[in-house]
């Protein structure tokens, strides 16, 4: 089954939250950006592990959504994440902490941070976490109610996999709506997102 939805990031504009009408207990769900919540209802419960890949706006918008709702976020091993973009999406910087260089074992640092955070974004730097270690952390995440978002690496047995891809750019100030070299600026990034996992039906969304 596949559904279509719009997902736009940037430009300071946000889609109107859609009433899904689905019987979902909102306390058990992680706050999501509206574009994503509409697209993937119930795809990211608290206390799960999700692997994200592709365009970085996905992580940034999740960080923004969680902190805007009053949650605390730690970003581990992602020194190049643009937090200013998160601010533009509504993030509250005072609820974000950054461990840019977590040393030899970023997973250990993430495990400690799970105690107090609502969302931990963990950049693995291309590494993959073996299933035995992953199981211990998944149990910990479930117990603490902290969602672990793994980026730039593989996590055996993650319950959700989110993928985002840039499907196009909108350029403001072109002549007659056609991008003209030398004119205008990038005003919006269009994303296509896809989610797979145990808890979600395979959903594809194409931005437009």
């Amino acid at each position, binding site marked *: 089954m596949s559904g279509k939805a719009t997902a736009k*990031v*940037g*430009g*300071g504009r946000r889609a109107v939250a859609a009433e899904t009408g689905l019987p979902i207990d909102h306390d058990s769900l992680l706050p999501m950006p509206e574009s994503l919540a509409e697209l993937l209802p119930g795809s990211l419960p608290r206390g799960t592990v999700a692997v994200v890949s592709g*365009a*970085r*706006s996905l*992580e*940034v918008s999740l960080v923004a959504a969680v902190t805007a709702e*009053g949650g*605390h976020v*730690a970003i581990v091993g992602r020194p*190049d*994440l*643009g*937090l*200013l*973009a998160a*601010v*533009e999406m509504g993030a509250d*910087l*005072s*609820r*974000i*902490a*950054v*461990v*840019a*260089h*977590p*040393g*030899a*074992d970023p997973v*250990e*640092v993430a495990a*400690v*941070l*799970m*105690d*107090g*955070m609502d969302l931990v974004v963990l950049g693995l730097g291309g590494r993959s976490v073996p299933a035995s270690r992953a199981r211990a952390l998944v149990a910990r995440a479930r117990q603490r109610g902290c969602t672990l978002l793994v980026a730039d690496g593989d996590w055996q047995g993650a319950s959700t996999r989110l993928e985002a891809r*840039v*499907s*196009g*750019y909108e*350029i403001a100030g072109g002549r007659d709506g056609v*991008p*003209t*070299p*030398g*004119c*205008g*600026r*990038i*005003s*919006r*990034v269009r994303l296509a997102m896809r989610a797979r996992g145990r808890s979600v039906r395979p959903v594809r969304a194409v931005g437009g």
Partner: protein
Amino acid sequence: MDWPAVAAAATIGVAPTMPIAVTLANRVVACSAAARAVGVRRGLRRREAQARCPELHVVAADPARDARHFERVTAAVDDLVPRAEVLRPGLSVLPVRGAARYFGSEQAAAEKLVDAVAAAGTECQVGIADQLPTAVFAARPGRIVEPGQDAVFLSGLSIRQLAAEPSLAPADRENLTDLLWRMGIRTVGQFAELPRGDVASRFGADAVTAHRIACGEPGRPPSGRDAEDELDAVMNCDPPIDRVDAAAFAGRSLASVLHRSLLAAGVGCTRLAIHAETTNGQELERVWRCAEPLTEDATADRVRWQLDGWLNRRHHQDRPCAPISVLRLRPVEVVSAEALQLPLWGGLGEEDRLRARRALVRVQGLLGPDAVKVPILSGGRSPIERITFIPLGDEPVPAANPDQPWPGQLPEPSPTVLLDDPVEVLDVDGNPVRVTARGLFTADPVRLEAPGCTGRLSWWAGPWPVDERWWDAAAEARSGRAARAQVLVGSGATARALLLCYRQRRWYLEGAYE
């Protein structure tokens, strides 16, 4: 030197200008200038002193009396220049740098000090030098030694001076100076000329100390921090700690000891040094900074986390090689207790915030205090400048004021990936594109060469010149003209939007929109 005589004069109610001698075990230990003028000397028997000066007032020595009377002088000095350290009653040292800057010169500061002490009813002499012992010697003639001239000033002094000041020399220093005198070494300068190795091998450890003083080498400078030593909480761990649960227990009791002493002193601690010694003498220390004063629980947690961090380091060779035997908490920086204002009931979401903070502080224990940073908005034009990262616990001060207008700031959206890689921007002939003094491209950019995203530009915009720091000639020369541009590499579904920055006559990839 004469302070016991001055204090004695004040006690028996005679003027300090009268001949006075203070005696201990029937020997003169201190005398006033008037007594010295008629031949009374230190070390003279009391009877003989009285014979030389029949109208001499003889008083028994009493260190408590000396200290009591000196308190008044210390208070007067403290009013003028804080953080004076008392070496002994009659002699106090203070760092002169701040005072000299405040009063205009060292000379002026010295005059102010003499006036302040005179107002307290006593005479004093001031000596200023680079090193503490030199300053003490300089105080006798009331000299101000030029910076770097310590050894020159000392070289003219008699070798016996090295033993004269009881607060700088142990009791048996006199044996050393006596021996040196008999060997023909009569001045401090001659002593300083001897090689350090020879001094150490012939005369022992104390002679090395004396030699350091004679050479004017730095020792321990006076500092206000040392005054807080009495706030330290020390615990001798028996049995030595090698497990985290034992460490947690020790941390809790040590924290309560520390907080009792902090409470008694009426201060809160904002920087805490945790110091551990292992059974075979290895020393570990880490200083914890906190924006708000530590509570007892917070202290206990930090001790536990720190010991946890030390005992469970990932690499075996980094761990302490023996169990911890001595644990010491030292408040490095204290604030008065009024600064500590805990809310009566936790605010909204306060518990979550504290929980998050504790987790972050634990990571600081594992990786070091600078590893965990919190972002705050700052002023600036590039996306990197507009976020300042502050180590957790430090005061969040942005690098620049974000409320200023910052003309030329890039509009939304900002790039979600921040980079700083040199790239090549080429024109249609393959020549590099630059930015002219008028803020224009030398030619239309056509191609971008960068690791990972080389390709034709399907769109570009800019350059938007950055007119920053033109008033600062050095910064201007360093960065030269700067400009930013947005480009779209590739076309259709594989296009990537990038932010480029031109500076130091090169293009840099500053961010990617994705």
